[in-house]
Each structure stands twice: as C-alpha cells, then as structure tokens.
C-alpha cells in the first residue's frame, strides 16, 4: 500500500522530486514561479502580443510592442552588412558552406586527415565566394559584413590557431630552454593584454610599421590578431590536456618502438585533446562572441550591422529589436555548441 503514497510518487518522478521534493526545493520553485509570473506577461506582451510583425515604421511607433517589421525590413542588411546585395547568393553560399563544415566536423566517424583537408579547401572556397575572382565579381573585404564575417572570423581563427596552439603547448613543455622561453613569452604576453588592445595594434600601429605603400588588408590583420589571441588561450588548454595524460602512456609507446612524434600524434595528443573538449568548446563559444569586438575597428559583424540598421532615419531607434534578434541568433549557435560538447563527452568516454 505504501507504493501509492505521495513520497513514492516523488521517488518515481525525478522532476517532481527536484522541484517540490524538499522544503528548500519547494521554496525555490515557488520563488521562481512568482518571478516568472511577474516578468513573463510584460515580456510576452512586448515580444508577441503587442508586437508589429508586418507594417511600417509609423505603425510600429503607434504600437506598444516590439517592431519585428523592422527586422523583416533590415534582415538582409543585418545578415550581410555592406556586402553588395546583388551578390547576396554568394554570401549565403559561404554561410551554408561554413555551417556545413561545422556539421560534418561534429560527426566523430568523419574525423580524419580528409576532414582537415576539407576545412582548408572549404575556407579557401569561402574566401573565394566572398572575395570573388575568376567569374565572380571582386568584393573588397571592407564590404564584407554580417553573419559571414562573424562565422569566418571565429571559425577561421580557430582553425588557424589550432596547429599554432599545439606547437605552443608542446614548446612550453619542451626540454629546450630557448623554445620554452619563447613559448612562455608569447603566451603570457598575449594573455596579459586585452583583445581590444591587440585589435587596435593590428589596425592602427601595424600599418605605421610597414614600409610606405605596403598595405595588408584590415580583415586579414583582424583575423591574424584574433588567431594569435585564440592560440595563446588554446595552448594553455592543450597543455592542461597533455599534463593529464599519464606518463605510462608515452613510456608504453616508446617500448613498442614508436618514435617521439609518432607517440605524440597517435598516443598522447588524441588522449590529451579528448580530456579538454569541454574547455575548448567553452573557449570557442567565448571567441564566437568576442568577434563582436571587431566593431570597434569599423567592421560590420552581425552585432554591429544590427546596431547600424537602427540608425536609418526611416527606421530610427529600434535598438531593442535589433539586439534581441542578434541575441537569439547567437543563442542558437552557442546552445547548439554546448549541447554538442555534452554529447561528445559522453560519446568519447572510455571506461
């Protein structure tokens, strides 16, 4: 008979147990519900009920809710920035290609040197799609903007940074004093300086150091600055992974007759990287959002394009809508990355 009594019901439903199972949990649940009851109705009213989905700036001004018609009108500009709109399909293809590559990379079965080659080929293709050449009309990099820039900067810098980070991590653990010193110097200098300072240096100081007439593209400078920044942080994560691999592993590999580099490539690095998937994804999510800082050097990534869209006198002042929209886009990407990393950790767990 005891099975029918409430405590048993709680035992069978983990959700119920977590929400009302104890006095503390019950209080917390009531508090959260109260807060939600306070915050949600006005939020929903603004987001949906009183919002204008189709209309003009005037009808938006008259309504009290959000103006999603503004996003509709500005969607192309927010997603592409100043990219020439008659060439928009190229930018869409670039976005598709980048997301496709990320999708492929998410499948552990496909991890091989072919995937690395696919990334190199894919990035070259994206640069060609965006920049033009051959049959495609050239589009200078300062016209690039929106989502392609956000994706290309964050993914491209990560790809560029990865080999550099592994080298730096290995160098920092090297027995050669000189190599170790340089690695420590580079990592600590870059980590000790805010990203904004590195960006400023790359756009303002670096051109002054070049000989007259020589110029390196601003986009390339920002991408390299970002890569170096990522590499320094990534190197420390990789080093943590390397330290987590027991010494016995490399000793066993050596006794099997593997060379130093074979040991690293086949035994140590795979185990080391697997250990640090969570911090790497954490860094990737952070870098994805940090790319918004390129706005200060006049590049129109997704966030900056959305902000600029709200300065059009015809659609003046819809900043809240612009920011909410961009936040939603960022959330979709980052949430997907977080869920994926959880799944991957479970998938790769070795007994």
């Amino acid at each position, binding site marked *: 008979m005891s099975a029918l009594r409430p405590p048993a019901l709680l035992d069978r439903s983990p959700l119920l147990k977590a929400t009302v199972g104890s006095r503390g949990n019950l209080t917390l649940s009531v508090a959260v519900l109260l807060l939600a009851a306070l915050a949600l109705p006005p939020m929903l009213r603004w987001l949906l009920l009183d919002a204008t989905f189709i209309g003009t700036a005037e009808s938006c*001004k008259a309504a009290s809710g959000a103006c999603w018609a503004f996003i509709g009108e500005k969607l192309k500009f927010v997603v592409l920035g100043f990219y020439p709109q008659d060439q928009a399909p190229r930018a869409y293809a670039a976005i598709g290609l980048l997301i496709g590559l990320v999708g492929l990379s998410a499948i552990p079965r496909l991890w091989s040197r072919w995937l690395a080659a696919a990334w190199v080929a894919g990035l070259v293709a994206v640069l060609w799609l965006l920049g033009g050449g051959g049959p495609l009309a050239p589009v200078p990099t300062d016209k690039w903007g929106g989502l392609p820039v956000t994706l290309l900067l964050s993914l491209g810098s990560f790809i560029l940074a990865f080999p550099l980070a592994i080298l730096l991590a290995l160098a920092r653990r090297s027995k050669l004093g000189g190599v170790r010193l340089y690695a420590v110097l580079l990592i600590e200098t870059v980590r000790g300086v805010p990203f904004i300072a590195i960006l400023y240096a790359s756009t303002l100081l670096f051109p*002054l150091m070049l000989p007259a007439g020589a110029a390196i593209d601003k986009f390339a400078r920002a991408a390299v600055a970002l890569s170096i920044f990522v590499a320094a942080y990534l190197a420390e994560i990789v080093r943590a992974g390397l330290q987590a691999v027991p010494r016995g592993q490399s000793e066993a590999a050596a006794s099997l007759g593997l060379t130093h580099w074979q040991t690293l490539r086949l035994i140590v690095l795979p185990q080391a990287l697997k250990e640090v998937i969570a911090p790497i994804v954490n860094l990737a999510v952070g870098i994805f959002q940090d790319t918004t800082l390129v706005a*200060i050097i*006049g590049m129109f990534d997704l966030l900056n394009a959305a902000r*600029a869209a709200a300065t*059009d006198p015809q659609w003046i002042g819809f900043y809240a809508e612009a920011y909410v929209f961009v936040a939603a886009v960022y959330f979709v990407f980052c949430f997907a990355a977080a869920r994926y990393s959880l799944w991957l950790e479970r998938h790769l767990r070795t007994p």
Partner: protein
Amino acid sequence: MSFHFGLGQGLRAAAVAVAVSGAFLGAAKAGPTLDAIQQRGLIKVGVGTSPGFFAPDSNGKWQGFFVDFGRALAVTVFNDPDKVEFTSSSPQQRLPALQAGEFDILLSGVTQTITRAFKLGFHFGPVIFYDGQGILVSKSLGVEKAADLDGATIGVQSGTTGELNIADFFRKTGKKYTPVVIEDSKEFLAALESGRVDALTQDSSDLAIRRGLLAKPDDYVVLPERLSKEPLVPAVRAGDDRWLEIVNWTVYATIQAEEFGITQANVDEFLKSEDPSIKRFLGVDASLGEAIGLDPKFAYNIIKAVGNYGEIFDRNIGPKTPVGFERGYNQLWTKGGLLYSPPFR
C-alpha cells in the same frame, strides 16, 4: 624599333609635363593623397553612424548629410557620385586611422579645435555643420527662443559639459532656472515626456535625434540658439594642398549654389542665365575651370548629382525628416546664418 619610338615619346611627354608643371609652380600641387585617389579611382571616406548624418539604408547603401558631401567630392574628382567608399569609424579610432592613411578624408563630424590643428597635423575644410549645445522644449510652453525661458526646469545629463554651459547661459540672460541632473540616458526623454522637466539640454544634433525617439515628436522643438560651439568640419591629412582645396571648393559650391538659388531641379535652366558670375560658376564660361585645372562644369555636376547645401540638409536632417533639424546657424549668411562661400572667380 617601336620600343625606341615609345621611349622617345615618353621622354617628350615627360619634358612637356615638366614644362607644364613649371608653369603652375606656386599653385596648389597634387600631393600624395590626391595621387593615391586618382590611382585608386576611388575616394576613401571615414564616417560615423548616426541617424540622418551617416547611416546605411535597407539596401546597405550609405545615406546621410555627411555622406552626400562625400558623393559631391567624388563628383568633383571623377564626375561620378559613386566613386567613393564610406567606412564607419569609431570616434576614438577615426583620427589615428586618418593619420595611418586608411582614409583620404574624415566626414564623420569632427569638431575643429586649435589642438587638432597644431598638434595632430590635420587640415580642416570649411564648416559644413554648426553644431552646439541646444535646448529641446515642449511646444506647449510657447517659447520661441532660449532667452524667453524663465523659471524653467531643465534636464541636463550628468557627466557632460552641458551643465556648465547652461549655467553660464542663464547667468548671462539673468533669468532663473532649475537644473535637474539626470543619470540615465533612458530617463532623459522620459523626464520630458512625463513633464518632470520643461526642457532638456544637450548637443543639438543629439537632441534632434532623440526628439525623433519621442512618442509625439511634433509636440517638441529644438530652440535655435546654441550654447556652445561645435563646428563640424571635413578633416584631411596635412601635406596635400590641392586635395584640401578640392574639399574646400566642393563644399563652397553647394553653398554658393543655394545662394544663387540653383537647385538640382532647375540647374539646367540656369545654364541659360546671362549673369556672368553664374556663367562662371556653372562652367558655361569655361575659363575659370581651365585656370584652376578642374572640370569647368564641376559645380554644375555636383548640383546635378546631390543638390545644393539646402537640399542636402533638407533631404537628410531637415524639418520634414524624422531627425527634424531646423537650419539655425546652418543657414546662408544672407538669411541670418553662418554659411558663406568665397567668390567663384
């Protein structure tokens, strides 16, 4: 053989070029900036982002008051308003970026100051927008000019020079007022709408834009007086006199056109004018353009492409736009403003 012939021709051309440049010795010479522009076939302009002054439209094309002056420059140099590229630059970054050669000119609302002229090595073109601290009031007050304000409650934003300027102003007029310091920029407009203050004070271009954000913008007006001086000018790197002169006279052409009453719509009719100064101005009499080495019809082309100063103003930031700016000091000298073009002769 043809190689030798070509070389000889080249030498002769060089000799002619030397002779010609000798004839112009003492004139404003093309420097590195203008050379780079000609070579590139494009003028690089640094702008900001602010509604009405410089903002991308839904098609990603830059529009705005300063943007139109950039287009006018492209007309002067290339007779093509699209041979110009606008890049947004933040206020902290724009002057170093101009220094580093990233732009040929800044049309981003730079205030001309003595420090910038002496210390930073910039040259400035004519003032294209006289900004300054203004006062935004509700029309229900029935006040036409700032001097009429008596006993008003005025909101100022904390951390700005606005508080000191308004205090100076009322000390001068001898009238009374109550300052209300407002921290948050969101509360700034709310204070006016709720009637907590009678007026707000701030840079007038900023006030005009904020006015557009009010629920009923037409019930409010920015008074014509300015309590501080913010002359917004085009800025170029020092070292290219001819480029600076092109900037100067492109701006003057828009002002002079308005003074003549020449607009985008009627400019072709003015080609038939018998007035010798208009004939010179529009290039019907080509002697002026030949003498200065510009397309004699450059002023005509500018007006045809972007209109005169008043048209540029009205289209982008005038009373009929959401920004809703009154001409104020940005009116011709003949109508009580400060805009004055030197003679085209």
